[in-house]
């Protein structure tokens, strides 16, 4: 599913092209649509890897023995592709040298709309696909989230947009093609992870504030670039690590309130604490040793959080850029942070593996209050397990 207009505004400095008027301005400024080309690059990589694995299996007879996973040999040739007509997919598929079955044709007119995206996604998913490749940006990812509306379908983003705060995208079109190939080959080491769909809040932006919201999660094949595929020992050990983090949080909070921001780690920690929390909001949990965890505030805004009383604040980095504060969790405002007691009451929750995946880049914050940012910045203890922390840099 290609959003032909995604990324139009990038090179002409207009930012995202949500809305017809901005697209027209972008085109008037000489913008060129790149989404189709980038989608084709991803598909080309996918096609070559598929063809390659077929050849490899033949040449290295017996090489894949005992390795059941298709990526290691014995894979099939061309993937079966279903898509929408023209610039919404079929053109890119053809450019990549693949053939596709067209299951949706956008309405007449010279450009497609979000409605076309929704309809195309529904038509494609109705075919029972193994993977939905989307070429676009944050806006397109949001449209896919809306279109799926809870229907389970693995998704992978080919990055073509201007804004890519969401964590559903491959790092490049080729990388997306590689991940897609590994997923389709059902290599034993590829699993799904919940990736955040985020988008900037354009109203806030127009008011001069950079803000983004978390809209939900899409299941994305997890081919971790920095994680060993064939383990030789315990690695990310996500469930164990999260259990350890939850136990540490429970010990620190003791008998008290814990506001948990959105994020895949915070959600998992909430689950380990026995709380059923909202999907994208900030919830307040009442912890009491020996008692079940209670959710005392669900999806609270700034005022509700202030009214809830002094809380510990549990955060995890969200999105693809390592933001800790100021993206997707603006409810945890400077007022809320100060009322909580600032730095001393922040519990940053992250597995050691996820920290490593930042590649040494610092965690980011942008609360909108420079004085507070300066106060919070520096080396912050990140809870990585039971009785374990890593000191990690937090900067603006």
């Amino acid at each position, binding site marked *: 599913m290609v959003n032909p207009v995604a990324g139009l505004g990038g090179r002409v400095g207009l930012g995202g092209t949500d809305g017809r008027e901005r697209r027209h301005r972008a085109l008037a400024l000489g913008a060129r649509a790149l989404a189709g080309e980038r989608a084709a690059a991803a598909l080309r990589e996918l096609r070559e890897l598929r063809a390659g694995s077929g050849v490899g299996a033949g040449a290295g007879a017996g090489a894949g023995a*005992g390795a059941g996973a298709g990526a290691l040999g014995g894979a099939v040739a061309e993937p079966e592709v279903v898509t929408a007509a023209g610039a919404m997919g079929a053109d890119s598929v053809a450019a990549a040298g693949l053939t596709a079955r067209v299951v949706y044709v956008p309405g007449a007119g010279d450009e497609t709309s979000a409605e076309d995206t929704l309809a195309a996604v529904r038509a494609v998913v109705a075919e029972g696909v193994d993977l939905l490749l989307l070429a676009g940006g944050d806006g397109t990812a949001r449209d896919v989230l809306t279109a799926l509306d809870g229907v389970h379908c693995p998704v992978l983003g080919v990055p073509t947009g201007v804004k890519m705060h969401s964590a559903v995208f491959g790092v490049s079109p080729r990388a997306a093609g*590689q991940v897609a190939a590994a997923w389709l080959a059902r290599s*034993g080491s590829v699993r799904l992870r919940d990736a955040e769909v985020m988008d900037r809040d354009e109203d806030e932006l127009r008011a001069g504030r950079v803000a983004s919201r978390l809209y939900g999660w899409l299941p994305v094949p997890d081919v971790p670039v920095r994680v060993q595929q064939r*383990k030789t020992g315990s690695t990310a050990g996500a469930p164990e690590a999260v259990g350890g983090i939850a136990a540490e949080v429970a010990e620190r909070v003791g008998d008290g309130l814990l506001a948990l921001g959105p994020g895949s780690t915070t959600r998992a920690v909430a689950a380990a604490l026995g709380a059923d929390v909202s999907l994208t909001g900030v919830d307040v949990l009442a912890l009491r040793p020996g008692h079940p965890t209670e959710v005392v505030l669900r999806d609270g805004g700034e005022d509700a959080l202030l009214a809830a009383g002094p809380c510990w604040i549990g955060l995890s980095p969200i999105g693809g850029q390592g933001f800790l504060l100021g993206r997707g969790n603006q409810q945890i405002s400077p007022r809320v942070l100060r009322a909580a007691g600032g730095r001393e009451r922040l519990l940053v929750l992250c597995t050691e593996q996820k920290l490593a995946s930042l590649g*040494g880049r610092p965690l980011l914050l942008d609360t909108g209050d420079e004085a507070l940012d300066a106060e919070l910045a520096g080396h912050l203890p990140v809870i990585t397990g039971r*009785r374990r922390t*890593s000191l990690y840099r937090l900067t603006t």
Partner: protein
Amino acid sequence: MTAHHAPAPVSPEDARIAPKPRLRRFQQASWDEKLIFELGSPGERGVLVPAPDPAIAPVEIPPALRRAEPPALPEMSQQQVLRHYLRLSQENLGADLNIDVGQGTCTMKYSPKVNDQFVRDPRIAALHPLQDEDTVQGVLGIIHSLELLLKEISGMDRVSLQPAAGSAAIYTNVAMIRAYFAARGELEQRDEVITTIFSHPSNAACAKTAGFKVITLHPDADGYPDIEALKAAVGPRTAALLITNPEDTGIYNPRIEEFVRIVHEAGGLCSYDQANANGILGITRAREAGFDLCHFNLHKTFSTPHACGGPAAGASAVTEELAPYLPRPTVEFDGERYRLDDDRPESIGKMRPFYGVVPNLVRAYAWIMSLGAEGLRSAAETAVLNNNYLLHKVRRIPGVSVPYAQGRPRVEQVRYSWQKLHEDTGLHSEDIGLRAADFGTHYWTSHHPYLVPEPMTLEPTESYTRADLDEYVAILTEIAREAYESPETVRTAPHRSTIHRIRPETLEDPATWAVSWRAYRRKILGEATR
């Protein structure tokens, strides 16, 4: 005048005879050898054990301890046993067969065979740990002398050789740190241990096992331990800093003295992980950097065999201030006689029955004595030279990069990255390492988490020749070429090993494990067992 001409070389097309290929085509044996329990037949014997001398009174085993029936042990002849284990050994890639420079942080140096002969000598092999002190003066002398040698090498005041491995030595040190603060009444307050993410993970693990909270420092942008992070981490709760130097990246921390000073000023102790001291023997010592404790791993630095997980041997070394907490017994010498001192009320107790893994202590002692002080320093210098030679060559292989400390030499090892090759080809570092098996070698990636993406950690030590290193580089170069030109060859490797690929999910699923004969019968053969 007639000239003597060399015979014309055989044509390359002549299939009857050919030179050796540039890169060896290793082919591992595959015997499909049965388990030893499936071999042999009832009544078959390897040796006939003579009956006890009538002069020796038979030992009466209390009836309650006697088995109802004899154990179901394999019954087979000597030849069958020999053949069985030789076959299995051919399905391994042993340290004595391959250019084993790919086990960075684990140091696979050559273990001289003469040292094994010493260990097999009946004067060592026939000793029993329950013998009277007076009858084991020789081996106590070796242990005591080895302690003195390691004392000199580290600069510390006392050494214990009880720990059975490097990690056991780290645990010994952490236990002494705990005892030290307990004696001062500060243990409640000082419950935090600081380490770095590029220090060996056993440091964090031992600290946690001993009940401390662990704070891990990440590197700064240049790959050095972040001194600002250390300043943020220390405080009244700091018990100790456990740090490796050079770290697993092969980068030497130039501010190590400052690290020690900062922790000392906060009232904490400093323990130096010198498991791998291969690049600094005779060049720098824990004492001069201000440390209170350190440890060595005798297989990493002092050539004893790796032993596939043990028993190995470790050495804990401490300053006079921490000496009362050393494991007991200690070996003492009054100028005439060696004795075991068990009367040490402040000791952390025993780390191991008796006094350590004696065969490995003998090997390490022999290795040090055969080299002498100059030889130790020369070993370190050669290891560093070999490593930087390898670095110079490997960094030119397409797809390889060398993260951190750009342009600076490394000490004894380097953690390289295949990230560029991964981005270009989709292959992982593990794929490259597995393909190396087709050329008769291998490498190890890195501890987790992978801070260096697509890692490869090489440590050539002083044992390998320039020709060995050139061959290793040629193998990596060839695999990188294949990765770009025919990635499937690499993706599906190894092609010439006994086992090609292990399904990763089985490593995590206990249902697929059979760690005993009984489990094998139940899970794999489907038999009903008790």
